[in-house]
């Protein structure tokens, strides 16, 4: 379970997030919704530990982010909006890096790499460096890296950005599978249709505050009412 309580974030005296509190249940898929600058990515960065928080606590399965940062991080993986691959590593070495970092068993690692590279059509690119890949391919590599380990929480910033239709559909299925196995997924996207298809819950942000949160079906009804 992810618990975020009373989160406050400021950058140079400017309040970016104010009194953010929410929790995610095991196996749930939650969409962070909001306009540009609403604070979606800042929430992700704060959970990742990249953005310093002024106040509040973040706990993942009882492990406090401030108390035991490495144990906290070992339970989550992240897919950023822009793929950030390491220039010194080939595609396969990126997978090895993630496998090693999350202490994935060798046999399981090989099996997953084979399945994912086949699904995302990267099997012939394993020895390529990032600069030899297109943006979509780099995004696929980044996605596979995050999907390799079994983690409690998957953070995804704009998961379908740069992916072709087939890859986006495959990713949707893979995320549903992950959630069915108990992984909590917190994602942001401007593609509302996909979010409605994928997520069960939503959290709506406005100017760094939670405007409303609940079940996705209620959000759909709400958005229809608003558009009428």
């Amino acid at each position: 379970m992810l618990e975020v309580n009373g989160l406050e974030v400021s950058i140079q005296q400017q309040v970016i997030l104010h009194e953010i509190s929410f929790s995610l249940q095991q196996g749930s898929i939650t969409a962070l919704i909001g306009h540009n600058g609403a604070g979606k990515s800042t929430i992700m960065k704060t959970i990742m530990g990249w953005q310093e928080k002024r106040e509040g606590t973040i706990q993942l399965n009882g492990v406090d982010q401030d108390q035991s940062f490495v144990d906290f991080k070992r339970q989550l993986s992240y897919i950023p909006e822009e793929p950030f691959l390491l220039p010194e590593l080939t595609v396969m070495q990126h997978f090895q890096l993630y496998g090693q970092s999350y202490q994935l068993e060798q046999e399981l690692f090989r099996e997953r790499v084979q399945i994912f590279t086949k699904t995302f059509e990267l099997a012939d690119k394993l020895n390529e460096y990032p600069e030899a890949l297109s943006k979509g391919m780099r995004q696929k590599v980044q996605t596979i890296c995050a999907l390799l380990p079994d983690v409690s929480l998957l953070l995804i910033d704009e998961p379908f950005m740069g992916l072709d239709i087939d890859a986006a559909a495959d990713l949707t299925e893979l995320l549903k599978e992950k959630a069915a196995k108990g992984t909590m997924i917190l994602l942001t996207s401007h593609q509302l249709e996909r979010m409605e298809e994928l997520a069960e819950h939503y959290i709506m942000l406005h100017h760094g505050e939670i405007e409303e949160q609940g079940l996705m079906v209620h959000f759909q009804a709400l958005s229809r009412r608003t558009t009428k």
Partner: protein
Amino acid sequence: MKATIQLLRFLRKSRAQKKKKLYQQAVGVAFDWVIMIYLAFFAGLGVFIGYGFIQEAADMLLAYQSLLASILPVVLLGIVLSMIGLSFYQPGIAITSTEWKLTSLPFTMEHIWLLLYLRAIAHRALLVSVIFFMIFILTPYPLEFVLPWYSYFLLAAVLTLLPQWYIFQIEGWRKLLFCLVGFVLIIMARLLFAILDLDPTHVFILALALLHVYLWPRRLTHINWQKVMEKNDEKVWNITFVNYMSGNHQPKIKRHYFVKSLFASPRRKQPFDYQDKMKVMRKLWWKSFEQEVNQVAKFISSLLGLVIVLLFLPSEMQGIMSLVIIFLFVTISTSFFLFYFKIN
């Protein structure tokens, strides 16, 4: 920590492999075997001539031994000043974008920073050790003379790393003020030691060590990671060299973080009347000044450094050094302004 060590080792190995490939491609474009053979021949010849010259100059080098002993504090001061100078351009600890990206995995920046700090210390220690080993082997200086110099150099090189990292993070007028206070303190210390007729060598080392008590808890606060990564990426990958060798002569736009921070103000971000010629001219003048001011700053800080070193030199060398400084000032000022007017 063990996992972080393993990971950094894995990255270093992979980076070395990629760099090898990159350099092979870059060098392969510019060199061929004939040039390589000629270069090796001339390098060997150069080493042979150099060694012969040192052997011939043995008596002269021994005669300078006592003079060198008297300028040890100046050399140490030079190391401190070069650290201040370097802190405008290099953080000293090689955290590239790769190391930073590792923080998205279960690793902490504290561990990564500490390991890379230790690695940077080891690099500096190795460099100083190799230089002094060569001096010991090639020159007639005895071990009793070389060893104290080696110890002081080693300490100074290692103890200036953290201050360099800390000063690198400071921006704008605060940085200038910080450096100015440092210069004034050094000058005051020099005058005090001259009056009291004391050897300042140990005090320099002790002051650097004590500075760590203040800096250590602040080593990871207010860090401009973007700047750190950009400078280190450029250095680690030696992009300038690779671009040059591969024939890519597109000038890289460098961000002058320090200069920008000096002139940053909310007023400059305001919209302006682009039909007012004076305002447009003023904007353009500022733009061109910002581009050149980095060179001016380098020039002024080098001169300041020289002036401070001058204070520590024996009186017989002060006259010559003063002339050198005036000559440098006139030549660089003239060439800079002539160049500036030529291109405009």
